[in-house]
């Protein structure tokens, strides 16, 4: 597991992360979200033992990151943002080199296993330099999984993959996350929503929100929105739906015959709206609830943070 307390890192006089506090339990996939330069990679590099923090403490897999760095590094699998590979080596040579540094028992068998896991078995003898970006990413993931680490730290694990590979890698991560602690950073917010049990949103080196994707949505959703599309004109539909119990505001949508309704949180007005449209003799073409997405939460939180900083 990962326990972070007061983690701070300065590059010269510039703070990259400040007073980070969070934890991740075994069997939990924690997503690290944030704009570029927010401090995600710095945090991950610290947690993998690549660089020490300026202050604060962190325990990974039960070991102190600074005092027991080697023990931590034995137990962490790491996929950096830019997958570092030796182009002159073959896929299996590369894994054999990394596996021997990590003292993986029955290395040859284990290499076959991870290659199968990331669907690279057929390229075992290919030179790393000849692999496409997607294949390199999968090889990086194989390297991170090779020693069956207790903690997996993945920096943008699906970047550069095609849609089929993205689905496959997400499936692998979810499978691994059942037993291990997984911390992954991503720019793809739907990925965090889909894969992660919990999300940390980081901005300007501090955590601005931390919860399950579902809880974050319900906390920040406020009014929910409903889009209604019928065969009538906008103005006729607006008149019809004004005054429906639970609807706080009605405004025209982007298309003819479309309106957007704002409703009180937790109040489902769809049955009443549908009935009223049909009873008025109109054709109901679309009735869609537009809940706030993780993208909107992310933008809202990072914007609030930026505004408060600008305001002093």
């Amino acid at each position, binding site marked *: 597991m990962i326990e972070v307390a007061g983690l701070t890192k300065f590059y010269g006089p510039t703070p990259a992360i400040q007073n980070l506090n969070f934890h991740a339990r075994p069997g939990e996939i924690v997503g690290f979200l944030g704009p570029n330069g927010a401090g995600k990679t710095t945090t991950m590099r610290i947690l993998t033992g690549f660089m020490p923090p300026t202050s604060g403490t962190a325990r990974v897999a039960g070991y102190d990151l600074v005092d027991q760095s080697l023990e931590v590094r034995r137990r962490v699998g790491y996929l950096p943002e830019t997958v570092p590979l030796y182009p002159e080596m073959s896929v299996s040579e590369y894994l054999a080199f*990394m596996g021997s540094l990590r003292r993986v028992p029955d290395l040859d068998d284990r290499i076959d296993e991870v290659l199968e896991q990331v669907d690279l078995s057929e390229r075992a003898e290919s030179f790393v330099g000849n692999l496409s970006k997607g294949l390199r990413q999968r090889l990086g993931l194989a390297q991170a999984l090779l020693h069956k680490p207790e903690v997996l730290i993945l920096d943008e694990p699906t970047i550069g993959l095609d849609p089929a590979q993205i689905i496959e890698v997400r499936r692998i991560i979810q499978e691994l996350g059942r037993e291990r602690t997984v911390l992954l950073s991503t720019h793809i917010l739907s990925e965090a929503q889909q894969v992660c049990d919990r999300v940390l949103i980081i901005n300007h080196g501090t955590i601005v929100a931390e919860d399950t994707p579902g809880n974050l949505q319900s906390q920040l959703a406020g009014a929910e929105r409903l889009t209604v599309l019928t065969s009538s004109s906008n103005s006729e539909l607006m008149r019809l739906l004004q005054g429906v119990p639970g609807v706080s505001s009605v405004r025209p949508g982007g298309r003819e015959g479309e309106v957007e309704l704002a409703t009180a949180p937790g109040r489902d007005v769809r049955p009443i709206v549908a009935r009223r449209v049909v009873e008025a003799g109109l054709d109901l073409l679309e009735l869609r609830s537009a809940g706030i997405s993780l993208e909107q939460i992310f933008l809202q939180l990072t914007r609030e943070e930026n505004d408060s900083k600008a305001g002093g």
Partner: protein
Amino acid sequence: MRNLWIIASREFRHYFISPIAYALATMLYLILGGIFFINIYYGLQTGQINPDGRMVIGPMVTILLFATPAITMRLLADEYRMGTMELLLTAPVRDWELVIGKWLGAFGFLFVVLALTWIYPLLLHRMTSPGIDQGTLLAAYLGLALAVGAMLAIGVFISTLFRSSVAAFFVALGVMLALWIIGGLSSGAGTGAQLAGWLSFVDHYYNNFYRGVLDLGDAVYFLSLTALALFLGAQVVQARRWR
């Protein structure tokens, strides 16, 4: 310690698939072969071949002065440039294991290259009577191995300072040339000259080892230079983690 051998053997094998290593070996053997041929050719013309097994060692030392920075320039600079340093430093590898492993791999490669040059003195030994002085030759080669070890260690240390292998090459070459020419200042009197003599690569190699004399002071000079450079290299790797 196991990691040290893993890193060393990877580096050693890497030299045999790298064009730089083949270019270096080809250049070295061509130049030494040419020098050997000219010496033998003129010896046969005059009917007298100088039975000095070191005829290839002098030129070899000069070639190695330029070759060792070329061999070491990429060792750590490339790891930083390619990002693979992140991989190595997040693996359970100690900083000193990484630095010494790299040095050992490079030393192993040059040891093989130098061992093959022994063919020239062996040929000379068979062509002359009563043959060459094997003791002198052995001392010259032993000194050469120690000097090469020190030069490679300096190269490894300088390679830890840069991301650009070209920059590492020129700085390492500059340092080695400085240690080479500083011997020129050792002829005068005073502390400065004494210090120059103490630091000089030339004095420590040519004054004793090359003449067949095994001097503990010279061995200590090369070994301590090697240890100091490797220690500094490991410190730089550690310090760069903090940046």
